[in-house]
């Protein structure tokens, strides 16, 4: 059952000024996969992730060579509408970053941007998205209170709900649990597991166990190079490259 990849990265190099941070990386990601990106600090995981929704465009010194296709469209051409791309490729950040608005307004932020005003429709989205991230029962009485009053784990799930509300097909997550306690982390990991029915997920993590638990495939980066990319089980139990073996057994990093 060979499908088309939903994300296809071809020979990508990234520079910040003269600093070469992604080196000739190619990789394909298929629909409804969860791909974990692992590697030591500074190896370029975040940079790589942010290529996929063009969040690096904001960095002045950023330059890139190569092509990235998402749903068969090269996203680095002049004709691409970056805003449309970002609706389709959502992103969850390392630190929960809800807007200083109500829970409700956080979820509908992306809808309002699109000019949607239909209250019934938005009410429906708010409920279904909060259900989807398992937050509905906890916040259904506080929809109009500030999102900043929620706990860190709740805030992060709210940020996920907010991302899902604009109906992306791909969700990028950059160490989404690194600032959370173990219980919130477990909740979010379960959530990721459920989300892959509907979305393709790319997740950066420093936690090997997490990568093993949530992902189908794992990509190991080292100093800007993609060292190994394989099914998660294979990569963790039977790595083909010595460097990968050293990294996952904690010999460095």
């Amino acid at each position, binding site marked *: 059952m060979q499908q088309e990849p939903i994300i296809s990265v071809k020979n990508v190099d990234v520079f910040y000024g003269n600093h070469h941070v992604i080196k000739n990386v190619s990789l394909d990601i298929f629909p409804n996969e969860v791909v974990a990106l692992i590697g030591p600090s500074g190896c370029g995981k975040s940079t790589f992730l942010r290529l996929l929704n063009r*969040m690096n465009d*904001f960095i002045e010194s950023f330059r890139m060579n190569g092509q990235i296709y998402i749903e068969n469209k090269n996203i680095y051409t002049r004709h691409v509408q970056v*805003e449309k791309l970002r609706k389709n490729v959502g992103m969850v*950040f390392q630190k929960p*970053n809800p*807007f*200083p608005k109500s829970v409700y307004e956080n979820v509908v*932020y*992306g809808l309002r*941007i699109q000019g949607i005003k239909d209250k019934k429709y938005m009410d429906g989205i708010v409920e279904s998205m909060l259900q989807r991230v398992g937050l509905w029962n906890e916040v259904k009485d506080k929809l109009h209170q500030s999102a900043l009053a929620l706990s860190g784990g709740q805030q992060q799930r709210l940020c996920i709900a907010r991302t899902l509300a604009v109906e992306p097909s791909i969700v990028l997550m950059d160490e989404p649990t690194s600032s959370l306690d173990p219980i919130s982390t477990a909740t979010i990991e379960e959530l990721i597991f459920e989300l892959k029915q509907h979305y393709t997920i790319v997740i950066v993590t420093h936690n090997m166990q997490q990568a093993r638990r949530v992902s189908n495939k794992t990509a190991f980066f080292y100093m800007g190079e993609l060292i190994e990319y394989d099914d998660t089980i294979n990569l963790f139990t039977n790595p083909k490259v010595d460097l990968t073996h050293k990294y996952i057994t904690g010999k460095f990093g």
Partner: protein
Amino acid sequence: MIPVTSKFKNNRLKDKIFRWYGFLCTLTGVILLFIFLYSILAEGLDRLNFQFFTSLPSRKPSDAGILVALIGTLWIMILTTIIVVPIGLASAIYLEEYGKKNKFAAFIEINISNLAGVPSIIYGLLALEIFVRIMGLGRSLLSGALTLSLLILPIVIVATREALKSVPNSIREASYALGATKWETMWNAVLPSAAGGIFTGIILAISRAIGETAPLVVIGAMLYITTIPTHPLDDFSVLPVQIYNWLSRPQKGFIENATAAIIVLLGITFLMNSVAIYLRNKWQSKVKW
């Protein structure tokens, strides 16, 4: 061992001395303020009756009131706000979010800091030439409001920029990642998050504006006027000009009027500053980054 301990002791002593010195300095300011408030209140409080608020100026101190000046001050507050808010916000947003790295913005930035330090009477002279003479607005409320807008524009710009700076980048990223454009991000995420700081800055700037006398005297605010302004192009007076006028009269009764008017002006300023502080605290407790 020994030198270390003695140095340590020495520092503690210095700390103690400084603490007392600082306390006394602070106290001086507070005490002087209280003496000032007390003497003003003692002299002017009796004069603050209904007649005082509802009467036009008069040659007889006991018939005179602040109605014209009070309404003039309210007009000035409103007009100045209407003029300064859009210009100040737009400039601040441009400088902080759009023009960050270009030479022109850097040039403007230096000049804004300089403008904030220009004595207010100079603004009066500038305004006399531009608004009163060249633009032909005369000695009107509008001229006055434009003058004061010019005067407080740097304050509003600086305060707004500070407020925008304090909005963490993660908020902007969150908005962009949901498919918002820069414009949408500004309006829907950044400005609402910075609103507390911006409002505080505007209120403090306006409260500074309504206390200004010199530039308004230069452009010709009326020292003696008995008609209530009903139109932005009407002649006007404001509280500080009225106070200045009364203080320059020899009769004891007018001095008393002036102190009473000072109480009113102080009251308005204190009220505005309290609102500003309230807003700041409210926003700070709500928005903890």
